[in-house]
């Protein structure tokens, strides 16, 4: 088992003919993901190393049975591409694109919220990896293997760092889900934690958060009330000054809210252990699940 992507995933990539889109589509296919089609308006009929390209998502879904979309198009076209994928009946839309205007994200979010059959992960995320089964996105799969730790994170490289620390302690992963560093993520920590809670393979959940917003605080409440599995957290940005955006559009301390300390306090107050650095996250995992090496 895993969450969101597995051997049943049939992926259609929006922006497959772009440089990055081609590179990562082929990487995902090489990992074993069924990359069944791509969409680039005006390039229908072409193919990318055997992957057929269509002008519209509707055609791609009809002809290749795609159930998952990966969006790689530039920011100004991304909201449109997400809405097209939803309209064509895709149930999981993973958006890698960074730099989408916040108002576009907000409109897309509120529109998708009315459709119970669709889930958006991202934007501005590294994607989802279920080791040994499927990789949708840009997560470097070589560092991860199958196992029972589910990871959900707002950042990319920090996830690899934490995943690597876990791997060195002998742990593999059920799935690694990047929810993205933007102000309006399509899926929240809570959405993904619910999936890990229901996933029989996942024994421990690692939550990697950062400054800005209140998603970690909300997750803390949810964990206390609804999660039976152990959760270990990490929060980045203790040294971030207020009012300055730390790289991610969503990572900003505004006034007195969104600080790393407030998030760590909220999690600890509800019984979630918080590692002070990525290495400590792995050490706590060892304490909870026992050494694996």
């Amino acid at each position, binding site marked *: 088992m895993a969450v969101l992507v597995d051997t049943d995933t049939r992926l259609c990539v929006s922006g497959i003919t772009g440089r990055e889109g081609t590179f990562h589509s082929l990487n995902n296919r090489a990992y074993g993901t069924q990359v069944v089609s791509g969409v680039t308006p005006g390039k229908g009929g072409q193919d990318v190393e055997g992957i057929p390209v269509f002008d519209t998502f509707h055609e791609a879904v009809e002809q290749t049975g795609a159930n998952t979309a990966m969006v790689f198009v530039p*920011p*100004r076209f991304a909201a449109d591409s997400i809405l097209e994928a939803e309209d064509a009946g895709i149930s999981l839309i993973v958006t890698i694109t960074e*730099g*989408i*205007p*916040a*108002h*576009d994200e*907000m*409109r897309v*979010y*509120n*529109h998708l919220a009315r459709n119970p059959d669709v889930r958006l992960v991202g934007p501005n995320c590294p994607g989802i990896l279920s080791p040994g089964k499927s990789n949708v996105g*840009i*997560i*470097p799969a*070589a*560092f991860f293997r199958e196992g029972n730790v589910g990871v959900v*994170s*707002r*950042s*990319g*490289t*920090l*996830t*690899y*760092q934490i995943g*690597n620390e876990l791997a060195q302690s002998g742990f593999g992963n059920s799935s690694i889900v990047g929810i993205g*560093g933007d*102000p*309006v993520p399509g899926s929240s920590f809570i959405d993904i934690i619910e999936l890990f809670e229901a996933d029989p393979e996942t024994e421990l959940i690692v939550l*990697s958060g*950062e*400054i*800005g*917003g*209140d998603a970690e605080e*909300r997750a803390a409440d949810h964990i206390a009330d609804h999660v039976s599995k152990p959760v270990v957290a*990490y929060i*980045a*940005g*203790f*040294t*971030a*000054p207020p009012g*300055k*955006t*730390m*790289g*991610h*559009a*969503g*990572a900003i301390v505004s*006034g*007195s809210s969104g600080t*790393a300390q407030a998030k760590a306090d909220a999690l600890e107050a509800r019984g979630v252990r918080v590692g*002070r*650095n*990525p*290495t400590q996250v792995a050490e706590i995992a060892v304490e909870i699940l026992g050494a694996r090496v």
Partner: protein
Amino acid sequence: MDLLEYQGKQLFSKHGVPVPEGRHAVTVPEAVEGADELGYPVVVKAQVQIGGRGKAGGIKLAANRSEAETHAAAILGMDIRGLTVHELYVEKASQIDEEYYAAVVFDRGAKKPMAMLSRMGGMDVEAIAEKDPEAMVKLHVDPLIGFQDFQGRRLAFEAGVAADVIRPVGAMLAKLYDTFVAEDAMLLEVNPLLVTEAREVVALDAKVTLDDNALYRHLDSAEFRNLSAEDPQERMAKERGLTYVSLDGNIGILGNGAGLVMSTLDVVAQAGGRPANFLDAGGGSKAEAITSAVEVILSNDDVTAVLFNIFGGITRCDEVAKGLIEAFRQIEPTVPFVVRLDGTNDKEGRALLAEAALPNVHTESTMLEAAERVVELAG
């Protein structure tokens, strides 16, 4: 991007939000000329992005030309809580009867815009919340249908706005919402929202934050400059397409990925050090980008040591090593570097560094060891 008052008011006017007439000035003669055009009395206002301008002496009423000249000369160059005043806004004086507070903000929690109104204007929003939380009336707007007239009326009635200005206040909220959407704002705040003696409703101040990601469709706004807030390293980094934030310590930091860089700053601070900057070289950085980033970090004279913390995914560690070697060839740094390379092509990267034998470059294998080492070397 945070706008200055006069820039925010330009956007307000464009969308029909009433504002007093005013002129932007960067010199005393310009300010006086503007004041003459407007007719006295005028208010001379320092243009810096910080609260408490009035208390600091940055906002002055001028009854005539000689007062306008005196105030403009005094305010230009003034230091307001660490910011030097380089720009003025001269505005026609308003006859104040009542001061309200209005705002439209991007509510990340609800993922909807939130409109706010209070009768207690003139003090900051935290002070209102502390004094009387009930005084701030808030409601969410569905971004798919926009701000409705009833919402304007409801805010105005519930906030207890004077009966004769219910309609104009509601109308101003609707126009503020239009501005918020049309300009891709993250925040619009009007404090105070003024009711004049003639019972006209005007925005006396404007605090506007725009979404940087949407500037491509607002080319006029992208041109707005703020002379007092620009940090030299941040400007240099921006020109080079790097994500850089100035901090006040002495340890230069370079990493790949915003989350990892934030984590690196924390680990350095935990080891007892003080980071000089946040620098995210981004995913897939090539050697040239790394060389360019080293130049930006070292252009800050406070830096006494530099830490590279790379976990290669799309970024290849050998490219990072090549960039560092090239930086040493071009600029011959005199401060020590600590380099931690892990992930994609890490062995190749470490081999390149070993072969180059750069002076005063130390490699460490873990993030924690690297942080401790750089703190020790930074002194």
